[in-house]
């Protein structure tokens, strides 16, 4: 197992390196540069040149990239052009927030999605199945940023039950209940689509397992229906559900980009949006690098969990 994990981690390195080259090239190819973003309407050629020189952007592209990689290997992510702050500080400040948001959504979508999927499968074509399927389809089809605004409108503005935005209250607060209250709306919104996907696939996996012989045997042995479904059928279905959750991790990380903007969640996604629009290349590189690594790790985790559940996969 250790050798397998090691191999997977090594395989991730060229992926992340390739990604950094693509991000670098894309950022260089889109028009505009940090100097223009800083200067706005004052961006005369003279001023732009002066700022570019100060930022080290007057060097050639390959030179800039090699310098960046060289520094990175020594643990230096560089300085954000626009924020004038070490990239690593900014990324770490925001990494925790994204982890909390994405983690909570992943938890919500796994628990709710699996539960809904099982219920749906057990009562296939019954009323429960139809109702669950109806809501799941609505969840999958609704744009999350719009849903987020609707939630804010009702929960924060109309009923004043939950805060509209932010991660902590701006005064007082700062403790766990405060965090949870701020977390409910964004994590819930972010989880909705993923919940739908998990529910649909759990339903399919469960239906397949429920048709198999060992389930009939379990029932014939006189086991209670709960024991048959949760202990036997679900455990078998879990093998195909876990990779789905791994994929949803990527979806949740991607979705965080706009959910963080709507809810003013101080995470990586929001930082990346701003960094791209100000052409803050090093900050984009730093953020993408961390997000990609996280994605690789979560998927590795899912694969390991799957292998542990299914002895056939260990070989």
């Amino acid at each position, binding site marked *: 197992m250790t050798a397998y994990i090691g191999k997977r981690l090594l395989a991730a390195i060229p992926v992340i390196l390739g990604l950094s080259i693509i991000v670098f090239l894309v950022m260089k190819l889109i028009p505009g540069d940090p100097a223009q973003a800083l200067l706005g309407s004052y961006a005369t050629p003279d001023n732009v040149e002066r700022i570019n020189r100060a930022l080290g952007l007057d060097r050639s592209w390959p030179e800039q990239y090699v310098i960046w990689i060289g520094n990175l290997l020594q643990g230096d992510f560089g300085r954000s052009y626009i924020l004038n702050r070490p990239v690593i500080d900014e990324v770490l400040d*925001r990494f925790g927030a994204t982890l909390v948001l994405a983690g909570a959504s992943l938890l919500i979508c796994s628990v709710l999605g699996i539960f809904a999927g099982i219920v749906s499968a057990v009562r296939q074509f019954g009323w429960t199945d139809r109702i669950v399927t109806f809501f799941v389809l609505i969840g999958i089809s609704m744009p999350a940023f719009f849903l987020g605004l609707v939630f804010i409108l009702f929960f*924060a503005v109309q009923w004043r039950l*939950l805060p*509209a935005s932010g991660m902590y209250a*701006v005064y007082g607060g700062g403790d766990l209940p405060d965090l949870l209250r701020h977390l409910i709306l964004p994590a819930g919104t972010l989880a909705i689509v993923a919940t739908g996907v998990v529910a649909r696939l759990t339903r399919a996996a469960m239906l397949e397992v429920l048709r198999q012989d060992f389930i009939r045997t379990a029932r014939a042995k006189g086991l209670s229906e709960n024991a048959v479904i949760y202990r036997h059928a679900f455990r078998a279905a879990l093998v195909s559900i876990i990779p789905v959750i791994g994929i949803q991790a990527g979806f949740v990380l991607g979705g965080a980009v706009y959910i963080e903007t709507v809810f*003013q969640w101080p995470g990586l996604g929001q930082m990346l949006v701003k960094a791209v629009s100000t052409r803050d290349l090093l900050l984009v590189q730093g953020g993408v690098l961390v997000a990609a690594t996280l994605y690789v790790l979560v998927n590795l985790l899912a694969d390991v969990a799957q292998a542990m559940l299914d002895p056939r996969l260990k070989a």
Partner: protein
Amino acid sequence: MRRLIAAAITAASMLFALPAFSQTPPNVLVVGQIAEPKSLDPHAVTAVNDFRILMNVYDGLTRYKDGTLEPEPALAESWEISDDGITYTFKLREGVTFHDGTPLNAEAVKFNFDRMLKEDHPYHDTGPFPLAFYFSAVEEVTAVDDLTVEFKLKEPFAPFLSNLAYPTGLIVSPEAVKENGKDFGRNPVGTGAFKFEEWQANSRVVVTRNEDYWDGAPPLEAVIYRPITDTNTRIAEMLSGGLDVMVEVPPDSLQQFRDDANFSVYEQAGPHVWFLILNMKEGPFAEKAVRQAANYAINKKALVENILQGTAEVAAGPTPPAFAWAYNDELQPYPYDPEKAKQLLEEAGYDGEELTFYVTEGGSGMLDPIAMGTAIQADLQAVGMKVNIETYEWNTFLGKVNPGLEGKADMAEMAWMTSDPDTLPFLTLRTAAWPEEGGFNSSYYSNPEVDELLDQARVSTDPDERAELYKQVQALTNEDAPWLFVANWKQNAVVTSAVEDFELQPDFGLVLRDVSKP
């Protein structure tokens, strides 16, 4: 399972039972900003959004007199200008200290300008300083004695005192710069009414009352700036009681706040002008009558009332009325007169040639550029001018417009906000400011008389004489119509009824030293 659900309901009800939104506490003002500040080093930033914090943490040598754009003494108690307009000698206020306890003296002032302007200064690398050119006229700063500082200019430069009042002229603590280096922008130290307390990345910047403020300690104990980038979220946060002040309210929502007794709406015309650059070098707009016809053809009143919903006023010329002292109030905006426009077009022999119109998706001060561009296109169409719109993202747009419109387009949207009536004409209307000379005269306007007037205004140290010269410039450009003059934006803010003595300033700043919230 049932037990699990019961536990979940209990936990949820505990969360909801807590006061989910608490009214903000007395004497603490929560301001909803449109973005997180880039830095709190006044010399390193360019955005109004950042200035709103900086003006309260720092002072400059001069500041704008309340409600105007006229400089008055701040850290400098008084000044003298030599007859040739080259030497400015400032007498500093006695006993002023920075928040870190170090004294404000002539050496500190010198450090500030040397850091920005001299590439060999040991702390120049704490930049870059994008707006340092506001002070490019400065040749040398000398500390004459502890409280006297002398600026020697390369040439007479009349906007100097206004530029000192601009946020780029705010004075920072040299000791704090030396201590924090490049991270000074995250650990700001000034002399202002509020002291920097903490900056929590992307969630808040907190400043607290400076008890020793030279102009009297402010009534507020603290101000919390919250960045909320999404407009809808910002409005929701204001409506749900999480903010005391919200700036840059979109026109669509202003009415909602106006109708609600819990809120007051403030508006203030600022030094802003929204216009179309017309390409005078080639194509139909090379002809003065065609440019004037376009000015007559646009229903500017409908633009500001319908699209901008009263958040702007119709512009008459290149200088916004906010510069009251230099504004030519005899000047009238081109009236909406499509018949006259058609007649002028006919006289000029306009043959229906198609026009290319650069529109941006959004950008600093651009208001609602796509809707405005479309309305302008329709108005021009109505008098027989066929206009093709090309839309670009802001940075790309600037990259196309700033180098000049020649060979690319006939017209382009643009907006400016400036600190002095000199800046905009100087950068955009002089012959010497054509793009190839490094200026922003993208319409290739050239009128020797205007050039001469602007040169004179720049070197004159008599405000009345300067005002007279600028008024003549406005009259001339109004007649020549190198631009299509459209609108002057009014800055707005909504505050809750708990906030007292709130005022918006014409420089788009947010000065909070007199605001209270008992």
